[in-house]
């Protein structure tokens, strides 16, 4: 009975984090973007600096009418938001925030593979949405998502493989246990490749070609309204949380820090992930959207060779150490 309670409690905590963390990132995005562009951002909802703006947005979304276009494929159209959102919940379960088995929802032996595999499913959601909407812009958005995913999955995998080689394990907790501070400079290329490819997989600016609003309205999500649209937005922010958490765990040492790793390890994890989330928002405000050919070129001619070079470097250093 105790075991059941333990599992239930962990899953409950993961679920709460899954509901809260994306909102925090979203609100941070509102404020950070506003200040970087020399304006205030939402200020009224909730009183202090508009902290309740996203809650108000959620209420607004819930009140809207749920519309399915007449020509759309009903079932696939309605299923797509869930397919886009749920994988991130599953990924969140296996990300360790602190040392030991107590600070992770569930230890998975092949952690890296689990995480990358499940994240790949999320993109099926936007493909389904793009096709089922019966809208040319949506279909174009879906096509662009697929092309982008195909291009950026490989460098992401290769970069993650480099860390797995360095640690000698594919378990996320195992990688953190093996982490040393000098892995930071050693794996820095892999970290950059992983982060950039992850951004592209999330379709965040500057890789937001699939939802480019000035060209194809809102890509695969054009026909969505109300709660289903909100679920897509939520999955984007949940994706940011997951990507930042993963980059932290794989490349930045997770709960390792200059001091206090035993009791306050989870603070380090959250701090690093928060800084990365800030960088994600920063990139959105700073960089213009990449064109489709530039996107493909970046993946195939820059990121993949860099990731391969990182793997070679990892192998050489690993052999030299042994």
């Amino acid at each position, binding site marked *: 009975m105790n075991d059941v309670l333990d599992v239930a409690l962990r899953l409950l905590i993961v679920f709460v984090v899954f509901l809260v963390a994306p909102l925090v990132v979203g609100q941070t995005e509102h404020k950070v973007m506003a200040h970087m562009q020399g304006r205030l951002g939402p200020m009224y909802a909730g009183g202090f600096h508009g902290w309740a703006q996203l809650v108000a947005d959620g209420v607004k979304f819930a009140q809207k009418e749920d519309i399915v276009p007449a020509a759309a494929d009903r079932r696939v159209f309605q299923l797509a938001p869930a397919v886009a959102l749920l994988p991130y919940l599953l990924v969140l379960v296996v990300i360790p925030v602190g040392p030991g088995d107590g600070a992770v929802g569930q230890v998975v032996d092949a952690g890296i*593979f689990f995480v990358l595999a499940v994240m*790949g499913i999320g993109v099926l959601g936007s493909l389904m949405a793009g096709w089922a909407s019966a809208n040319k812009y949506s279909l174009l958005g879906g096509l662009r998502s697929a092309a982008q995913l195909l291009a950026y999955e490989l460098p992401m995998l290769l970069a993650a493989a480099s860390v797995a080689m360095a640690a000698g394990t594919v378990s996320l907790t195992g990688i953190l246990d093996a982490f040393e501070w000098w892995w930071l400079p050693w794996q820095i290329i892999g970290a950059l490749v992983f982060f950039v490819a992850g951004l592209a997989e999330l379709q965040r600016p500057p890789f937001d070609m699939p939802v480019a609003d000035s060209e194809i309205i809102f890509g695969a999500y054009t026909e969505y309204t109300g709660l289903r649209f909100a679920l897509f937005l939520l999955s984007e922010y949940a994706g940011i949380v997951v990507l930042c958490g993963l980059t932290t765990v794989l490349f930045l040492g997770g709960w390792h820090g200059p001091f206090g790793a035993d009791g306050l390890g989870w603070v380090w994890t959250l701090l690093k992930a928060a800084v990365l989330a800030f960088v994600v928002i920063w990139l959105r405000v700073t960089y213009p959207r990449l064109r489709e050919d530039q996107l493909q070129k970046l993946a195939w001619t820059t990121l993949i060779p860099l990731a391969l070079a990182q793997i070679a470097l990892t192998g050489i250093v690993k052999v030299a150490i042994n």
Partner: protein
Amino acid sequence: MNLAAAAGHPGFLSPTGVEIAFLLVGVATLGAAVVTVTTKQLVHAALWLVVALGGLAVEYLLLTAEFIAWVQVLIYVGSIVVLLLFGLMLTRAPIGRSPDADSGNRWVALGVAAASAAALVWVVVDAFRATWIDLDGPAQGSTDVTGAFLFRHWVLPFEALSVLLLAALVGAIVLSRKNTESTQGTQGTQGTKDAAARRTATGDDPATGDDDATREDKS
């Protein structure tokens, strides 16, 4: 753990919970696979394929082959189905039924499928008749075990397979480049003009990288 497994003589008629789950997931997977080939809607077929492949991954998990299960999801669901959907959307993906999706060879195909299924089942049953997996013990298909097995006992086939994949890769590149060389060879001076036209065209209309290929074909 049931009595039969404890006695070391597992039998067919004393199923444990895992075995029942295995059978049920197997039936669901088979159902999804049948729908994949019988549905009249092209994209639905691809999506049912996701269900079938996911069901297979669950089967691997139930057999404690964790590594294979996640690789199955990563490669098949995450990449191959996405490629399939990409191809469908790029060419023809109508909402609703595709009347031309049926093939006249369906009975021949059914025969071939049944024959190969029978052959596979026979070979697997014959080869692993006396092999039992202890589902309650430690994972026997963990990454550790799979890695050791693959790179200690099966290194040569593994490397041979990678050479085969490399050959396929090179072949794909050669096939896709052939067109370019022949157009440049026959048209000679016009090649540079075409290239310039293409550059401006892609500059104005950055829709897809495939535009290049279609323009090349026309010219």
